[in-house]
């Protein structure tokens, strides 16, 4: 029954979307999707007979900056006119903030899937059914690759390296389907630009393209180059845990969980085979691995066994669930009050250490989005510096280290719009902090062994606890 209904709702070629198209005429571009008419040009009749899926996963990619300029486009099949982005601009306008632009926007003939990172929208144009996460995941991988290549991924950097960007995109997708997405392989195909190489290239006229064709695609370990050589063989692991928590007005924990990652920087010669074991692997509730980790070994022995990629990579991310009791290392005392009658409000917060296992809490930053009614604030911090932006109403206080003997506090008044009624909601306080040499979950690496190579590597492990999405409601 209802299936039939669903079918009835299917937008045909343009039908059923006329309303949207009408509204979409904000920019006086042709709306007929020129690209489409080209690609349908030489198969018009067959189309109707076969209901042929002219499909590919990702048709085109547009890079759009936050002011709405398309500054790069790449097509993997027939060209899709950039006017298709008008639908995106429309959605962008409707969403008040960039992050509220829906990741999937249907248009009469295409679907626009976008991710927003580094103030750039990466908009992929697709034409047929495809798992949306597939495209989104791929777009994120593109951004990660750019970041990996250029250090940062920003509009000017992409513009400066447009040829490399183009070449990389060409390799990453073939006919809209991902081809080479491992950065190790890509870097063999197309060398990332460095200042030195740019200079050398200009003088010698040589190029960024690898002369040697890569072996990676064919190697047994697709994530690792062959023939890696280092004089200093080192393997460093960072265990980083982030506490996501929501703390209640009264200071009790509503929800808290620990999200951990193990980031590795492995620079080892040859094909080392590493095993990493934990003192207390049972803590890890849910894990996801880099493809190099042998899953069965983990299942049976709770040991991480892997041939690492070369360089930096995320070995593992894990989750310590909310069921386990999570130690909250800081507390915030707050007294924020608005009075109906007066145009002054009181603002007072104090941050203090709670369960820190004897470590110092560093890098503490407090941010808070204050209600619109607040005009300005006059505050005095006992330490650190604070800023208040009267336009965005964002308060931020860079506290620094917490000294348990003398707790940092921020006190003062808020001036409110005269005559306006008091805001409904007290602002939430977002907290950032770092604790070195402590994994708050208690996770400990037992040992790291290397097989397959003869030399002795330098090994190092570092623990850190950070605040993730740490929020205090007031």
């Amino acid at each position: 029954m209802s299936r039939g209904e669903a079918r009835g709702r299917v937008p045909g070629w343009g039908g059923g979307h006329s309303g949207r198209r009408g509204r979409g005429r904000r920019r006086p571009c042709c709306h007929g999707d020129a690209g489409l008419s080209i690609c349908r040009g030489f198969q018009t009749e067959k189309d109707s007979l076969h209901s042929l899926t002219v499909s590919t996963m990702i048709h085109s990619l547009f890079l759009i900056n936050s002011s709405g300029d398309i500054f790069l486009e790449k097509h993997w099949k027939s060209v899709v006119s950039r006017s298709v982005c008008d639908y995106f601009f429309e959605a962008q306008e409707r969403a008040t903030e960039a992050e509220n632009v829906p990741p999937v926007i249907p248009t009469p003939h295409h679907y626009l899937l976008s991710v927003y990172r580094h103030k750039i929208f990466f908009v992929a144009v697709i034409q047929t059914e495809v798992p949306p996460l597939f495209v989104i995941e791929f777009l994120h991988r593109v951004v990660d690759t750019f970041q990996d290549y250029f250090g940062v991924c920003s509009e000017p950097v992409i513009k400066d390296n447009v040829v490399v960007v183009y070449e990389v995109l060409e390799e990453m997708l073939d006919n809209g389907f991902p081809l080479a997405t491992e950065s190790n392989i890509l870097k063999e195909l197309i060398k990332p630009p460095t200042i030195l190489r740019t200079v050398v290239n200009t003088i010698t006229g040589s190029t960024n393209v690898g002369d040697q064709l890569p072996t990676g695609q064919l190697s047994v370990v697709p994530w690792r180059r062959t023939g890696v050589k280092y004089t200093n063989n080192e393997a460093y692991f960072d265990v980083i845990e982030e506490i996501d928590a929501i703390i209640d007005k009264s200071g009790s924990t509503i929800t808290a969980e620990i999200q951990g990652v193990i980031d590795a920087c492995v620079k080892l010669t040859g094909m080392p085979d590493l095993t990493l074991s934990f003192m207390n692997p049972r803590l890890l509730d849910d894990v996801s691995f880099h493809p190099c980790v042998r899953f069965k070994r983990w299942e049976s022995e709770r040991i991480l066994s892997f041939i690492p990629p070369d360089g930096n990579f995320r070995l593992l991310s894990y989750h310590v669930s909310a069921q386990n009791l999570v130690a909250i290392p800081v507390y915030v005392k707050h007294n924020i009050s608005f009075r109906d009658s007066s145009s002054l409000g009181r603002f007072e917060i104090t941050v203090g250490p709670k369960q820190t296992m004897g470590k110092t809490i560093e890098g503490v930053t407090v941010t808070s989005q204050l209600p619109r009614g607040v005009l300005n604030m006059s505050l005095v911090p006992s330490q650190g510096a604070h800023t208040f932006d009267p336009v965005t109403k964002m308060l931020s206080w860079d506290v620094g280290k917490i000294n348990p003997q003398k707790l940092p506090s921020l006190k003062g008044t808020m001036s409110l719009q005269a005559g306006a009624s008091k805001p409904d909601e007290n602002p939430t306080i977002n907290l950032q902090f770092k604790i070195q040499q402590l994994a708050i979950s208690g996770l400990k690496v037992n040992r790291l062994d290397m097989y397959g190579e003869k030399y002795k590597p330098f090994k190092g492990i570092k623990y850190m606890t950070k605040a993730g999405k740490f929020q205090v409601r007031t």
Partner: protein
Amino acid sequence: MSAAPAYNEDKGGSAGPGEPEYGHDPASGGIFSSDYKRHDDLKAMLDTNKDSLKLEAMKRIVAMIARGKNASDLFPAVVKNVACKNIEVKKLVYVYLVRYAEEQQDLALLSISTFQRGLKDPNQLIRASALRVLSSIRVPIIVPIMMLAIKEAASDMSPYVRKTAAHAIPKLYSLDSDQKDQLIEVIEKLLADKTTLVAGSVVMAFEEVCPERIDLIHKNYRKLCNLLIDVEEWGQVVIISMLTRYARTQFLSPTQNESLLEENSEKAFYGSEEDEAKGPGSEEAASTALPTRKPYVMDPDHRLLLRNTKPLLQSRSAAVVMAVAQLYFHLAPKAEVGVIAKALVRLLRSHSEVQYVVLQNVATMSIKRRVSTGPRPALVVQQGMFEPYLKSFYIRSTDPTQIKILKLEVLTNLANETNIPTVLREFQTYIRSMDKDFVAATIQAIGRCATNIGRVRDTCLNGLVQLLSNRDELVVAESVVVIKKLLQMQPAQHGEIIKHLAKLTDNIQVPMARASILWLIGEYCEHVPRIAPDVLRKMAKSFTAEEDIVKLQVINLAAKLYLTNSKQTKLLTQYVLSLAKYDQNYDIRDRARFTRQLIVPSEQGGALSRHAKKLFLAPKPAPVLESSFKDRDHFQLGSLSHLLNAKATGYQELPDWPEEAPDPSVRNVEVPEWTKCSNREKRKEKEKPFYSDSEGESGPTESADSDPESESESESKSSSESGSGESSSESDNEDQEEDEEKGRSSESEQSEEEGKKKKMKKRKKVPEGQEGGSSSDEGSDSSSSSSESEMTSETEEEQVEPASWRKKTPPSSKSAPAAKEVSLLDLEDFTPPSVQPVSPPTVVSTSLAADLEGLTLTDSPLVPSLLSPVSGAGRQELLHRVAGEGLAVDYTFSRQPFSGDPHMVSVHIHFSNSSDTPIKGLHVGTPKLPPGISIQEFPEIESLAPGESTTVVMGINFCDSTQAANFQLCTQTRQFYVSIQPPVGELMAPVFLSENEFKKEQAKLTGMNEITEKLTLPDTCRSDHIVVQKVTATANLGRVPCGTSDEYRFAGRTLTSGSLVLLTLDARPTGAAQLTVNSEKMVIGTMLVKDVVQALTQ
């Protein structure tokens, strides 16, 4: 950096003097004044001979393309450079071509021949990229060429090229769908491919070209399931979603029984309503199905799929996790679906776009399906799946609004009797949020909770009423709407609330809220008899200024009041109706006319007006507040269609479970056992060092934990058999070598005896020491010393066949006249027919031939066509004893098939220690191998006493090239760099063809694949015997019988790719001769001709 000038010139039009790029070409400085000239300049640069200028020009052109500028007028200038030697220029030209070829088809044709040449290149990456570009330029004329290229590439030896071929298939299909049938053939071929590299791409091609041909999957189903974990992430997603569809057509619903039970019990609970909701058809089906239902047993293949996808929930890729989640949701028994929850919750930490998609899916999955009937029982999900993770869906003030709203949806779905207090407390916080859209959604959510959970209905209602005094109008309006719905459920008790709402009409401006209040008052006017007429009076006053939706409700209210309280409201009603009569909106005019006719008794005294009260004041059922995700599960989860809640182009419906399971035997692979083994071996060979543990796992453990899986069990058994069989043959090989050594040292009859004894001893020894060994993890020792004895023991334990076979063989060895018994003896150990029971004659005979090689040289009459004499190369030095500090190493190509991997050339390495100290720990160290080449190391030699020598076998896959394999020989103290370069003749193995077959094959390999050379045979080399000997010494080929006396034919296949190499020598009695080699591998052909000519003429 390099492209910076392109932008600069675009912005300012003037290149800075500091730009180094322009340094080398002073003329280019002034050219940027206009677009026009710039293009001229680019053309000029492209026409020069300097690669650097060309490159610069191409970079600028690509930058133009990237910005969406038109660069099509440069096409002629660019296309010329397609054959440019500089690899980067070439790449950029490719980029350009792919972009513009479609628009300039005629000119694009100029480039085709370059790609065609590239398709024949010996370098696999060049072949691949040629195919990629050729298939990407969308010029319909070249369809036949593309078709040909794809077909050829599909049987390329390089998996990478085959992958590219798979990618090219949908491209060609979208260009010309008439090729479908041919393409399906290619897909079928590629689906049978064993490499993980190809699997993902070909399934993608399958999905795009012929998703309906589910029959193509049968044979490959199990293979795909088993390969899945090693496929790259993107391929995994595609394969998983394809397999989901496949499973839906091939297996029975695992929830059949459960859902039936539930249906029955629920019928008891909910009674008639339920039956109404369900179509009569489905009920019938259920009732008929019930008695005939057999107890459900899950198909082992179904189980295989579920088991092999589960580890992928741990993938770092959100897309893979989602794919597995939807697979479990659609395919797994109810009790097992729960495993996906944890992984999905984990994804919530990811980027907000990922969160968005995941939450949409979680929202669908978490819906309370109070009615679990309907034709899709599989969608009945374990309800509590996400409940333990309730808190993970709590909303933070920093979440984007769209995420907040989705989380709210999930929270509402998860709310139940037990957790509702927590959820409501949480909602209370949200209501005070600054984000008003979110607040509105929260109010809706509270309304839904109130309707779903009767216990909290009053609490919710009170809370909402309090919100009516909120300062924010949106909040109030939303509350009104929700309250209206709630009140409809139990209107009698809430007169007070209605009064309160009536007062709000003075202030509240939101049309929807106003309309809701009016409707409420009208509907329950008997509860508020005094207020209602007053409200109508006020509304009549402001009627013209109201929104349409409010106006309609005013008419409605007026009509209802007229019917109940006509005394007070008659005039008012008439007034309102007359106003409405002249309204701009025709809906309102219509409604006014219609209402008037209904309620005001006209002269005719219409029958309708008598029933007007019944019409207007009929009791109305309370609305059900439902999630907007209620019906989404019609779409496959994780799909775009599901996300949009509308069918996207190209969406394929997830089929219903079949009533009867189709024949499961279609998935049985009929391929003779031995090929399967060799595949296994090949895979093992390739991945053993890295996946060996998983390999091991797939054997015994799987069969242990699986219940009635006859099928997969047998398979896994066969795999373990093959594994152990392989290693047994390897170790036997080892024995052989030792024996050979023995044989050489003492060429006596005794040696045979000795050898046998030794072996016996060895066998005896084995079981004692290895009790525990076989159970130890294979993975741990995969690195080097996969102790042979351990393997042998396994063979002994598990297999009876080899023993029986061994018993059988000695006679056969005796039958051959013994010149060198050793090698005869080896024969029994060498060929592993126990593992390959159906091994075709060719394989056996090859090894036979190879084994007999030692004897037959002298007594050539013994089946001469089958024999290939010892390698022409003879012993070659690998390491001189001076350089090796007393360790001398030689090698020979034994021409025996390497037991571990049929693609490997087996190389015998002879070590002798001429120093006076023992050499310890001889093994192969890090090989530095050219692409494609791989070696199978020999087991470490623990110690070599002074004066002693030993021989080991190692396998090298030269990938059909004569590139040297470089590796290190390591002793405990030293490392020696050595390299083995094969003569081209060693890269092949003889095959045995009949004369007719030979001619047929030869006819296929003409043209470019044929190389002919004329030569004169010296006098010494005119006899049959010598010619044959010389040829077979040069190349490992088998003789093909031939009718004519002066023609010699030989045939072989290259080891890695298995392409035929056919050699014909036409010798005239005068000494003039013509040598012809036919082979797909032109390089090999050419080199072979050279070598054979040299051998013959010397």
